[in-house]
C-alpha cells in the first residue's frame, strides 16, 4: 500500500517536472491545444469510426472475428504509420529523405495482407469441411 502511494506520488512529481518544462516553452497554450486535439481526434473520430465499421459489418451479417479482424487490425496499424509519408506536403531536404514509392508500397502491403487473410480463411474452411465429412462418415 505504502509502495503504491510512493509510486503514485513519484508519478505526480515527474508529471510536475514535465509540466514545468512545458510552461517554460513559448506559447504553452498552443502546445496544450495540440495535446487536447490528439485526444479529441481519437475519441471523437478514430474510435467512433472503428466502432461504426464493426457495427456496419454486424448489420451486414459479417462477424469480424478471427482472420478478418486480425487482417483489419494489421491493415489499420500499417495504414496509420504509412499516413505521414503518404500525406506529407512540401519538398524533402534531399533525395535520401523519403526515397521510396510509398503509395505503391501501401497498395502492396494491403494486397499481401488480403491474400494472406483469404488464404488463411480458405485453408480453414477446407480443414473444417474435411473434418465435418470425417465426422459424418460412420467409423469402422
Amino acid at each position, binding site marked *: 500500500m505504502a509502495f*503504491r502511494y510512493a*509510486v*503514485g506520488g*513519484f*508519478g*505526480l*512529481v*515527474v*508529471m510536475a*517536472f*514535465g*509540466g514545468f*518544462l*512545458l510552461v517554460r*516553452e*513559448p*506559447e504553452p497554450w*498552443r*502546445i496544450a491545444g*495540440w*495535446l*487536447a486535439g*490528439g*485526444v479529441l481526434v*481519437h*475519441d471523437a473520430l*478514430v*474510435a467512433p469510426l*472503428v*466502432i461504426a465499421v*464493426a*457495427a456496419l459489418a*454486424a448489420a451486414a451479417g459479417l462477424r469480424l*472475428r*478471427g482472420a478478418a*479482424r*486480425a487482417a483489419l*487490425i*494489421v491493415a*489499420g*496499424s*500499417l495504414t*496509420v*504509420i*504509412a499516413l*505521414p*509519408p503518404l500525406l*506529407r506536403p512540401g519538398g*524533402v*531536404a*534531399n533525395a*535520401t*529523405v*523519403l*526515397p*521510396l514509392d*510509398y503509395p505503391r*508500397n501501401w497498395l*502492396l*502491403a494491403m494486397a499481401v495482407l488480403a491474400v494472406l487473410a483469404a488464404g488463411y480463411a480458405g485453408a480453414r474452411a477446407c480443414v473444417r469441411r474435411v473434418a465435418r465429412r470425417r465426422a459424418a462418415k460412420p467409423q469402422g
Partner: protein
Amino acid sequence: MPFTPPHGPPVTFGARLHDARTATVIGRLLGLAVLVCFATGVLSHYLQHPPPWLADRLPSRPYWGYRLTQGLHVASGIAAIPLLLAKLWTVYPRLFARPPVRSVRHALERLSVAVLVAAGIFELFTGLLNTFQWYPWPFSFVPVHYAVAWLLLGAMLLHVAVQWPRIREHFTRRSPGTLALPEADGPDRRQLLAAVAAGVGAVTLATVGQSVTVLGPAALFAPRSPAHGPQGLPVNRTAAAARVTEASLADWRLTLAGPRPYSLTLAELRALPQHEVTLPIACVEGWSKSARWTGVRVRDLLERAGAGPDARCRVVSMEAAGAYRVMEMGRLYAQDPLTLLALRLNGEVLSLDHGYPARIIAPNRPGVLQTKWVGRLEVV
C-alpha cells in the same frame, strides 16, 4: 472489468473484451514500450546536450551504442502505436461513465487519465512525424517532445499506482479477476491479442529496416532506406543546405589550435598515417548504417598540437550557420583510437554531401555530432 453504468445495459457497443484482463495484457506491453522509448530518448538528450560535469564521462563504447538505442527508440515508439490504439479501444466505454464524476477523487483520477492519453497520443504522433521530417505544429519539436515525455512517464506511473489492485487481479490467466470474466471470452481475447501482436510485428517489419540494414528491403514505410544515398549512405544535411561549395573549399586548410598550433593542407593530411575503421552513422530519427571510413586519428592530430592525454576538443565546421556548426567532444571520444578525421568513405574520397574534404566519425555518437566539412580543431 466490464463497465456497468448504474442505469441501463453495459456500454460495450455490442463488442466484448472491453475488460480489465484485456487492458492489463495490452497495458503491460504498452508500458514496456513507453519505458524503453523514454529511457533511450533521455539517453539521446544527454548525449546531444551533455551538462559540463558529464561531457568528459560520456563513454565512446560500445561503438554501436547510439545506433542500438536510437533504433530502439524509434522502433519501440512505432510498436507502441498499435498497442496504444488497442488499449484505448479496450477502455473506450469508460469514457462514457455515468455519472461522469462521482467524487473529487474520481474527478482527479479521470483528469490524470486524460493527461496520460493526451501525452501518449502527442508523443507517438510528434515522434512519428519527426522521423518523416514533417513539422505541421507551431512549436519547436525537440524541447516539447522532451517535456511531454516526462509528463507521459509521470502520468503512466500514477496510472499504474491507481489501477494496481485491478492490474494484480487480472495479471495472469488464473488471477481471480480473470477467472471471474466470462469464460467464452478467453479464446476471443487470445485471438484479439494475437492480432494486435501481428499489428506490432507488421509495423516493426515495415520500418525497422532503416536501422537493421538486412531488413532494408522489407521497410516499406521507412523514411530512410539503407539502399539510397551517395557512396552507400543516407544524408541528413546536404552541402547546399549548409552553403558549402567546392569553390568555398578551394584553399582549404585544417587549422589546429592548441599549445603548438599548426595547419595542414589536404595533401599533408593525406600523407599522415591513415587508419581504417568501420563505424555506423546513427541518427536520432532512427535510421543508421554502417560504413568504412579512412582518415587520421583525432588523437594523433591533438597530440601533435601539444595536447595532453586528458585533452578534449572543439570541432568547427566550414558551414556558414547551423545549430551544430561548433561541436565539442569529451575526453573519452577525443582519445578513442576509433575517432577519426575521415577523408574517405567506403573506399572513395568523401563526397561533398558527406563532408568533403574532412569530417569527424566517432563511435557511439549522435549523427548530428559527426561534424562535416571540418575546418578547425581546437585542443580544450
